[in-house]
């Protein structure tokens, strides 16, 4: 496939959340604000890109039997780096993403791409794959956060004080904090995945005809 296709597959055809249904834990937990989604997206972009790069670079010297522990150590080191840097320079974000920063280590997307792609492809392609997947993941996180945060309060926090507010006087009755609760998370994601599957099925029907 071309370099462009390699990049866009992470956004559409092989989108980690919508298609492969991976990495659900943080998807449900942190999508309470667009700011969180962006923050997590940046963290995942960093880890996924560098882990794909490093694993691709060492793919020929890693003994096959111990490749999983090796991948885990590489990923865990990168995640610890992100954790430390965020704690020092982006403390508010570090606080709201909380335990899900170290949990990036066990995010199936990162280990999944390492195993499925980076360990079998050249460094530059692996980097593109990583960036594409991270972008696809982040876009879905932003969409879900936008829906949840907007329906919860009528306002959307994009970064720090940058806000989009349609409910400044707190008067509209249709906004409810249900959407930022755990139950709301499950239901929004369930409806989103169902809707996406419906669209994809319809496309398949059209293709058949």
């Amino acid at each position: 496939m071309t370099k462009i296709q390699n990049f866009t597959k992470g956004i559409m055809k092989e989108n980690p959340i919508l298609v492969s249904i991976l990495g659900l834990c943080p998807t449900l937990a942190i999508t309470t604000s667009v700011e969180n989604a962006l923050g997590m997206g940046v963290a995942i972009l960093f880890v996924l890109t560098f882990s794909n790069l490093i694993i691709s670079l060492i793919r020929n010297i890693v003994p096959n039997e111990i490749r999983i522990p090796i991948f885990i150590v590489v990923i865990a080191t990168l995640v610890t780096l992100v954790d430390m840097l965020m704690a020092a320079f982006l403390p508010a974000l570090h606080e709201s993403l909380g335990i899900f920063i170290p949990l990036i280590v066990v995010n199936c997307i990162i280990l999944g791409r390492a195993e499925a792609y980076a360990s079998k492809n050249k460094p530059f392609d692996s980097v593109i794959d990583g960036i594409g997947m991270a972008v696809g993941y982040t876009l879905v996180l932003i969409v879900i956060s936008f829906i949840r945060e907007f329906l919860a309060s009528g306002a959307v926090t994009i970064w720090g004080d940058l806000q989009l507010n349609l409910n400044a006087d707190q008067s509209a009755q249709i906004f409810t904090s249900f959407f930022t609760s755990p139950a709301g998370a499950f239901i929004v994601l369930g409806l989103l995945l169902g809707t996406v599957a419906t669209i994809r099925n319809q496309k398949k029907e059209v293709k058949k005809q």
Partner: protein
Amino acid sequence: MKEMPKTIKYSLFLVVLGIIAGVLLAFVNSITAPIIDARKEEELKEVLEEYFECDKFSDETANYSLDKGIEKIYFGYIGNNLTMVIYQASTNGYAGPVVSLVGINIADDKLVDIKVASADKETSGIGSKVIGHDFNITGESINDYSFDIISGATVSSNAVKNNLVIAINHYTDNKALFEKAS
């Protein structure tokens, strides 16, 4: 080196990788840790300097064994000198926990102040009177003080008094350690 048994070769690989990771992280940690610690100190100061006049505070909770009811132990410094011990103590009041900050001066064993940090389950307008109330104990000795119960808010006031008692007891038991540290 030629035919090393696989287990040794693999373990070596992992160990080398671990060392590289450790060195890299130690390096980044040396840069980020001071920044994080400085910020934590700032945040602590912002909370405590509202009630206690010190230049610096440190969280000493992990360094001492805590009695029941004691949530946190802080040190208050004037300049670089350890001047007071501040306790965060919690007792059950009328409908929920009443958390107070108790400051005790190390040099003369006198009470600096007691302030209620949180009591949100207490009855509004009645028990809640303990929040922000000046119990007038500044300068009194820990062995001989008078604590005035707010009339009509007996249960909540008693919870605050109990916080004071818990703090004084812990202080008395550990005084030698505090004096050594100052």
